[in-house]
């Protein structure tokens, strides 16, 4: 037990604390606490009235027990009693208990508020401060309701003591943060601003926090604080180190107040008044100058306080972003810190430089420190500092240093902490794409990423490399050669197999001339990985095999042999619908392989050759003859192979025949307005025999349920020969979506069940609302959508004759407005529109550039949503 106990010590409390500390086990501690709780409870309940001292002691014990981590559910009333004691320490303990163990019992709150009210009115500054501290510590809405109107009065009253003003200012701040509506603005606000001039530094220190918070919501009401803050700051900065007496901290004048004033100034733009601005710039320069002076003390407190002001000054300079000279000076100063022996300063310098890198005035100056930052990435022992270095390298990257930075980050990735690998992978992928001048470098970089940190390479990253390779034929041969080499490694990451499988399937022909990478070699290399891969990757590989058969007829026999032998059959865990490789392939075309869409695939034709005509699926045979309840997505078969092609026909038009075979014709008529649509489906029986159990249903796979609402009406279960039935669909677009709903049609024809799944022609562009705008507006919006992820672009070959009138009609049918006289090249098309969904609207800008000579197009979409840009781009690209 310590010998010294200031004020009036409580012996019983000290004994109890000692007992607890002497407990050998958690159980013993709990036992001792329970004993004490029982004792206190009996004392509180006893007939004998407790004196103030005992009450205080027991309340204090309860507080101690609570702070040890135990629950306390009594004692509040005794604590409230202490509030009205006229002994200071009893009152103080009462307030402490209330502040720590806030209770929402309304009767108690009434009593507490009463006690606070009395203390606030007491004119005893010590009691007033206790009451204000309690309000600030609790900060509840109830207290706000009771006191928010009184405190401003106390704050600006001429006769309030300084300490009361300080507490009142911060108390009001806490209440304002919790419930701003309760704090009435008024005549007092002007007087609060003038507290910046107060003689008492403590009052200024408290007031400036309050003003900083209030001015955020009402900048105009507090505008005058700027010049007052500048002159206050100027006086502090230019004062000698001893002028401010006790407000000088290790030879630094008023560091806390300086930092707060600099923070307040960051709520406003640079001062308009030239004199004020001049004075401020002088202050900022003084702070920068002082950083170069020799330290007045060797103590770390001195340098910390001084540098706290320096960093806040630099924040203000960055916030203004208008003084090139100061920005460059700030950058040089931070550059010195990059090699400081204090880890804290290196950390903060790296962090602060990140923001400097984004200013055009200081970007070049930041870049000069690249070697130091790379060195930090390699040698810093603290991972959080290394992370700051990686952030800064990312921020300072541009075309001139991208290769160096990317290669350093790749090297770092090999040893980086697992916690930050994913972030580094993403950074490298973004930089590599953003600053790729030659695309073989880009391909190398991404493959390296997969090699070094395959687990951390997300789908977006490897899809992207496929997209870029697909769109750029100058890099396709190189990509094929490089993945082929990468796949030689005995242990390949699965993502490498995916990328390799896809690229060889598409562009393997470009390296097939070399006997070392002949088609059979490519095939056996890929197939050697097959058994180690997940179902999704196997599916992708199977689609590659089919492409091989198409590209290299000489591999057909081998591949067919492999497939027949069943070695490629899916494991038992695969979905039951895929009874064989052929079916699995159908899934594949809908799944990952379809992502980097390459237009109609020739593979489908081969399916029929590989597989004998599919027997009736067992599912359908067992189906209940009565109309079934709406099937879930798992109950219906995959869409027919032509589903995508059929869907594409309806992207730019609303009416037509959706499907037709020997039995059935399905026609569509639809109209869309805003985010709503109505669709009529016409089912025509082309035979002379009645369809039975006729049941068309709409299914929303996956997330679509939350994106699109489709109401359907049930149709008659019988459709006579030669007759037509109509089904009405009401459609509401809730939010943007990527995949269309499925239409499943089942019926019995001559006793045989028939099932057919189509994609319903509802695509996101149906909810387009065309927007006319002038060229100037278009450019302005185009600029606003300049983040890399907001843009999607495709370069593709024309599949139809390139006719300007047809193109125009298609773009209008797609839903956007066509804007004339916007693109300087009259051959190009520019359009704009808004996608209307219930949850949000997405503005879209598009540009289509035909190149008649090459028979190619380039299509660029910019929207505020990445997925929408990409999806619209894919949909539209297939129309030309």
């Amino acid at each position: 037990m310590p010998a010294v106990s200031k004020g009036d010590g409580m012996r019983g409390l000290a004994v109890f604390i000692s007992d607890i500390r002497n407990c050998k086990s958690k159980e013993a501690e709990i036992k001792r606490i329970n004993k004490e709780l029982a004792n206190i409870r009996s004392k509180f309940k006893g007939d004998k009235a407790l004196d103030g001292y005992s009450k205080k002691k027991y309340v204090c014990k309860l507080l101690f027990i609570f702070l040890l981590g135990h629950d306390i559910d009594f004692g509040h009333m005794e604590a409230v009693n202490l509030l009205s004691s006229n002994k200071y320490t009893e009152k103080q303990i009462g307030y402490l208990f209330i502040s720590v163990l806030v209770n929402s019992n309304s009767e108690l709150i009434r009593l507490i508020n009463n006690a606070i009210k009395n203390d606030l009115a007491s004119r005893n500054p010590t009691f007033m401060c206790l009451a204000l501290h309690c309000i600030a510590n609790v900060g509840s809405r109830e207290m706000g309701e009771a006191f928010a109107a009184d405190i401003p009065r106390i704050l600006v009253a001429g006769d309030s003591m300084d300490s009361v003003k300080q507490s009142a200012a911060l108390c009001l701040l806490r209440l304002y943060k919790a419930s701003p509506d309760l704090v009435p603005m008024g005549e007092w606000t002007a007087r609060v601003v003038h507290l910046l001039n107060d003689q008492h530094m403590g009052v200024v220190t408290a007031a400036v926090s309050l003003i900083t918070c209030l001015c955020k919501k009402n900048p105009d009401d507090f505008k005058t604080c700027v010049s007052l803050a500048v002159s206050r700051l100027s006086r502090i900065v230019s004062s000698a180190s001893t002028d401010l007496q006790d407000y000088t901290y290790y030879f630094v004048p008023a560091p806390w107040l300086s930092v707060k004033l600099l923070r307040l100034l960051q709520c406003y733009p640079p001062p308009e008044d030239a004199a004020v601005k001049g004075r401020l710039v002088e202050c900022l320069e003084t702070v920068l100058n002082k950083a170069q002076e020799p330290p007045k003390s060797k103590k770390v407190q001195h340098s910390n306080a001084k540098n706290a002001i320096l960093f806040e000054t630099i924040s203000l300079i960055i916030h203004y972003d208008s003084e090139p000279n100061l920005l460059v000076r700030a950058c040089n100063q931070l550059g010195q810190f990059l090699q400081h022996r204090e880890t804290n300063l290196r950390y903060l310098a790296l962090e602060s430089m990140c923001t400097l890198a984004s200013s055009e005035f200081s970007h070049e100056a930041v870049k000069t420190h690249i070697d130091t930052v790379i060195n930090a990435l390699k040698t810093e022992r603290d991972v959080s500092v290394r992370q700051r270095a990686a952030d800064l390298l990312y921020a300072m990257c541009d075309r001139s240093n991208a290769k160096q930075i990317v290669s350093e980050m790749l090297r770092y990735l090999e040893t980086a902490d697992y916690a930050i690998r994913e972030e580094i992978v993403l950074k490298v992928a973004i930089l590599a794409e953003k600053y790729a001048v030659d695309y073989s470098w880009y391909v190398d970089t991404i493959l390296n990423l997969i090699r070094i940190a395959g687990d951390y390479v997300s789908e977006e990253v490897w899809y992207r490399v496929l997209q870029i390779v697909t769109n750029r034929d100058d890099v396709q041969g190189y990509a094929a050669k490089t993945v082929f080499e990468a796949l030689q490694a005995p242990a390949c990451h699965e993502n490498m197999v995916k990328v390799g499988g896809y690229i060889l399937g598409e562009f393997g022909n470009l390296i097939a001339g070399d006997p070392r990478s002949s088609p059979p070699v490519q095939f056996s290399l890929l197939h050697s990985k097959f058994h180690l891969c997940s179902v999704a990757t196997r599916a992708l590989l199977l689609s590659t095999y089919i492409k091989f058969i198409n590209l290299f007829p000489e591999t057909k026999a081998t591949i067919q042999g492999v497939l027949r032998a069943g070695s490629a059959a899916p494991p038992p865990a695969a979905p039951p619908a895929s009874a064989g490789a052929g079916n699995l392939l159908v899934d594949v075309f809908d799944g990952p392989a379809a992502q980097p869409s390459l237009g109609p695939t020739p593979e489908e034709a081969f399916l029929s050759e590989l597989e004998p005509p599919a027997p009736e699926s067992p599912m359908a045979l067992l189906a209940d003859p009565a109309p079934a309840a709406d099937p879930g997505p798992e109950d219906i078969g995959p869409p027919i192979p032509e589903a995508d092609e059929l869907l594409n026909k309806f992207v730019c038009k609303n009416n037509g025949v959706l499907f037709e075979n020997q039995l059935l014709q399905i026609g569509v008529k639809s109209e869309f307005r805003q985010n709503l649509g109505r669709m009529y489906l016409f089912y025509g029986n082309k035979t002379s025999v009645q369809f039975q159990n006729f049941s068309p249903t709409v299914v929303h796979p996956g997330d679509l349920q939350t994106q699109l609402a489709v109401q359907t009406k049930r149709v008659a279960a019988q459709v006579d020969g030669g007759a037509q039935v109509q089904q009405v669909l009401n459609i509401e677009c809730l939010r943007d979506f990527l995949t269309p709903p499925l239409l499943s049609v089942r019926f019995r024809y001559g006793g045989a069940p028939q099932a057919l799944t189509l994609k319903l022609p509802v695509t996101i562009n149906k909810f387009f609302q065309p927007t006319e705008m002038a060229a100037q507006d278009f450019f302005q919006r185009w600029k606003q959508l300049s983040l890399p992820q907001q843009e999607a672009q495709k370069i593709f070959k024309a599949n139809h004759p390139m006719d300007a009138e047809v193109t125009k009609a298609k773009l209008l049918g797609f839903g956007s407005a066509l804007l004339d006289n916007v693109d300087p090249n009259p051959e190009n098309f520019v359009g704009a529109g808004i996608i209307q969904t219930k949850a949000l609207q997405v503005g879209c800008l598009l540009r289509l550039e035909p190149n008649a000579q090459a028979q190619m197009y380039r299509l660029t979409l910019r929207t505020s949503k990445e997925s929408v840009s990409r999806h619209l781009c894919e949909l539209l690209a297939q129309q030309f």
Partner: protein
Amino acid sequence: TPCNCPPRAATTASLPQHGDRGFPFAAAAAAGQAPPRPRPAAAMQFMLLFSRQGKLRLQKWYVPLSDKEKKKITRELVQTVLARKPKMCSFLEWRDLKIVYKRYASLYFCCAIEDQDNELITLEIIHRYVELLDKYFGSVCELDIIFNFEKAYFILDEFLLGGEVQETSKKNVLKAIEQADLLSVLSNIKS
């Protein structure tokens, strides 16, 4: 047929350069004056004092949180900070907050501040608080804080209120505390 389209502009952010006379580049857009970003009010969120063994000695919360959340945060932070090596940086990112901590003998002082807050001045808030305790108790040690936890709270309230610095003068803070001690002695004499 080789693609005759020109190479794609290196950043996906800007339009390709051919025939683009009318299209300003993204760089030009970026050069346009960005409006000044207002910074939200920030303050200390909480302060924890704990021993090297991970025992919590003092906790002060400046934001309303449930007891369950407080316990979870405390557990997580104590673990994180104790796992750090002596020469490491005093700042770390934790959730969306910044943690500033410093060890004095057997005690860790640990503050959570917001993104825009100044780390170095927070480090000196900790130091000033230690100085105040030291001055009051006379070369303070962990035991003083254990046995006189209520005093440690009172001193903290004079120095920081609602997570903001209220009074930085050592003299003024201690004067307030000593006045209170005097008051209680006086009232004891009277009674």
